[in-house]
């Protein structure tokens, strides 16, 4: 009997030891990666201020590269140009972006634009885009909204089923985003707040000129008073669509089996996006 017990111990220990994995630093040459500039700039004729964000990438395996907050780059030279000339954007330290009033540099539908970002030690970052001629004019929303103010007094619950539809602009290569923004007043802080609750992307491949329909289910619980919900339709181009599609599909909730998503960029010598847009909206008061 004793022997059998010994056998159990030996066998179980052996099996456990055999399957114990070994963890250590990888003994392999890593790719040489240099920091790059990253740009996010969306321009539309509806803008009152034209904005551009510039940040800097951090190589994963650089020394001291523990997960640091990525600060905006504040000393770059950002230049926006069109067929009529160019203008330099100035850095706004409060919001952390470069900006120029649209009155000084208006964005016009159907026009082409170019942006450059210069910073010492980095190659010049460069991108071009076109602003869509129009946005679908028949954009409509069928809302089914529930506001529950009694279940939790002082903490109203907003729930909505928002069905939207619009007709694709004629000609292929049109891309769209619909996003829903919830506006409310934080009564504790006394300030207005916005929550971008949902977004959905469309392209018109195989449905040029057809009616595009979609639905968003949103809900939020706040401490304050509700003002309105805005549903925004943005018409843009492939670059805009692909940047958002790849960025959003990479958000897989930590699923270890999902394929890594490569985020699209239309920027030369760096990362990010420069895209022209044309936007319309529907505001539903609450």
């Amino acid at each position: 009997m004793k022997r059998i017990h010994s056998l159990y111990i030996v066998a179980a220990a052996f099996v456990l030891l055999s399957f114990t994995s070994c963890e250590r630093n990888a003994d392999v040459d890593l790719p040489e990666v240099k920091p790059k500039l990253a740009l996010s700039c969306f321009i539309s004729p509806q803008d009152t201020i034209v904005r551009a964000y510039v940040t800097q990438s951090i190589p994963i395996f650089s020394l001291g590269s523990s997960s640091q907050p990525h600060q905006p780059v504040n000393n770059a030279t950002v230049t926006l140009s069109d067929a009529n000339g160019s203008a330099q954007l100035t850095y706004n330290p409060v919001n952390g972006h470069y900006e120029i009033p649209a009155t000084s540099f208006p964005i016009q539908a159907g026009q082409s634009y170019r942006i450059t970002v210069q910073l010492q030690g980095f190659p010049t970052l460069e991108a071009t885009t076109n602003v869509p001629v129009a946005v679908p004019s028949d954009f409509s929303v069928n809302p089914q909204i529930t506001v529950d103010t009694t279940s939790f007094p002082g903490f109203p619950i907003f729930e909505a089923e928002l069905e939207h539809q619009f007709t694709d602009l004629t000609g292929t290569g049109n891309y769209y985003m619909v996003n829903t923004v919830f506006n409310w007043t934080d009564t504790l802080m006394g300030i207005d707040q916005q929550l971008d609750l949902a977004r959905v992307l469309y392209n018109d491949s195989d449905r040029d000129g057809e009616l595009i329909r979609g639905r968003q289910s949103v809900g939020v619980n706040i401490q304050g008073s509700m003002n309105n919900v805005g549903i925004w339709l943005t018409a843009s181009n492939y670059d805009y669509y692909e940047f958002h599609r790849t960025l959003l599909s990479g958000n897989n909730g930590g699923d270890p089996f999902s394929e890594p998503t490569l985020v699209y960029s239309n920027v030369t010598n760096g990362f990010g996006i420069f895209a022209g847009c044309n936007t319309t909206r529907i505001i539903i008061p609450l």
Partner: protein
Amino acid sequence: MKKKISLLALLCFCLLAAQAQQSKFTISGTVREAGSLEKLPGVTVANLRARTGTATNNYGFYSLTLPSDTVELIYSYVGYSPVKKKFLLRADTIINIDLGVVELQTVEISAEQQESISDNTQMSQISIPVEQIKQIPALLGEKDVLKVIQLMPGVQKGQEGSSGFYVRGGGPDQNLIILDDATVYNAFHLFGFFSLFNGDALKSVELTKGGFPARYGGRLSSVLEMQMKDGDRQKYHGEAGIGLISSRLMLEGPILKGKSSFIVSGRRTYIDVLSIPFQKAFNEDGGIGGYFFYDLNAKANYEINSKNTLYLSGYFGRDKFYARVKSGLNSDDEFRASLAWGNATGTLRWNHIWNSRLFSNSSLIFTNYNLGISQREEFGGDFFELSYNSGIRDYSFKHDFDFVPNPKHYIRFGLLATYHQFRPSAFVIKDSYSGQFEEKARLIEAWEAGIYAEDDWTVTSRLKVNMGLRLSYFTTQKKNYWRPEPRVAARYILRENLSLKASWAIMNQYLHLLSNTGIGLPTDLWVPATRRVSPQRSWQAAAGLAHDIPKHKLMVSLEGYYKRSFDIIGYKEGASFLAIGDVNENGEPVNWEDNVTAGQAWSYGVEFMVQRKFGKFTGWIGYTLSWTQFQFDSLNFGRKFYARYDRRHDISLVGIYKLNDHITLSATWVYGTGNAITLPQAEYSLPIHSPGTPNPQGVSWFVTDYGDKNSFRMAPYHRLDIGVQFHKKLKRSERTFELSAYNVYSRLNPFFYYVGYDRQGNRRLRQISLFPVIPSVSWTWKF
């Protein structure tokens, strides 16, 4: 339609040609193993006078038509004493031959007698003697057919320890694994670490990587065909084995002596049995959990008469993880969960010899793969029950003919029809507390069929051509696919024992495997081609030299191949099998078709192999130089990228040395270029567009930059395994004691990489290695 007519015309022509040759007579029969009367496939039957010959088919049948003259036949097969027959051929003659087994090292084989690769039209094909499989050292001593297949040139393994294999750049889903005519859909135990096939019940193992004859269809990259043993018709025998993780038992013997026999082979792991006493001792709440797998192969045959034989064979295997935990305040409160998967196959075959030139085999085939996940929770008198199932079930009919009108033609024709039932997911939820009862099941039905004809045609004494055509058909969801698949292979003898071979084949595959990992997880899901997802298709061209060196008992082959594949599928970026069952942003269920993207592949390379199948020292040297690239419109921004298992260099050295009657030494060494993976390279954050907010640029999103897809190479893989077997002949039996070591020099090959931190908080690329040196011991008793 024109092609169908051409096919019939070809058959008629051959039949007429056979009738016209009145001065010729046919010698036919069956070749069996002396003693057990096991039918032997691939036995060479050569007419030494005219230097013509043939080989037995999978059922031991042969047919050779020769002019009326004195003939001198020699029947030879590796490991058996050759038999010579000399007689005057004056009428159709039936000669059944029983070949006696001999000790390998005592056989002196002449050039005509040994297996020849230079003479055969078939290229890109590897057969592995089952005895060799049993002598090659294996992980934890578990002999594994698929891991031996991985040691062949042109075949790559996937992850460390995994039994999954990649042939000429094709994925594991593109391998047709057949056991006694039945397709095996998930050939793996324990998440891919072991395969279903341990060799005890197998008679032959043959892998075809290219130059596919028309009789094969349904997959793009390879056909792994395994035949189970029939069982000894004269005496009862057995074999028992005890290893570190499993034990096995095989029994065979006559049912009706000389007419009928059976073989039963089983294997079961006992990690769970060993660990339960510990779990009971240490878990006060009585919770237990464990894992086991088992296999059972069974086969019986009955020779009705000399022209008719029936076979019934089956495979049953299952893996199961289970856990039971007592929880809560009541003694009845309990949580039970299990994950189980398994295959079942069954084949009923009828061999019929119509006449000395026509042989047929008809098969009724059943195969089933099922994955089940169940969970039951009991708490305070209420219960919650969930069960999930997915799988595939096939019912097939296969009818194959071998027709040998004359020594210049060996014609095969036949058909296969399969009714597929796919169950991508089915679940039942019962909740006694809320009264919820939900049952959802989705069944997809499909028909797949193929008719084929091929002729192995000896054009001249130097040139031999195998021409064939397969017409495949698939229908599901009111969508029909008809696809012709022409095949051609040729051999030209440059000089004695040296030939030039070339082949070209078109293949279609109507099934897809949804797999994120490619390592044979039970969650991998077989789905059919649909209206939205096209069937996979490919063409492959190969050319090479085959050289026999009888003096040294060596077979040398050098082959180059180029393969193009279309409509192969992959998961979209960000998608995973875990997402199936989710809903999309519009609240609609995510269908698997939404998660996949179609693309194309390029595979090309050169394979070199020197093999020695008999003698005191056997084994092979294999080297592969290869490239595999993919292009998917929805992956890597439409740019080409290397496949994960693209392997520039792959080397296998396998040696088995029979020191004497008591000791066999063996060793394998493998080297392979590291896998191509997507590695995070940099991070940045950027706002996305968010119109309607005061800052329309929205909040910042954290972005990881990976560079191009699969642009980083893992460290190369290499490993040495050694083994020694001590054989001892007892009075009526033989026992073998084996000591072996996997990964002798404990190379820490990376299983996967991840981004981690060192003590200073710097990020480092960390690696997980699975197996250091692993010694094992096993004991086998043959009686």
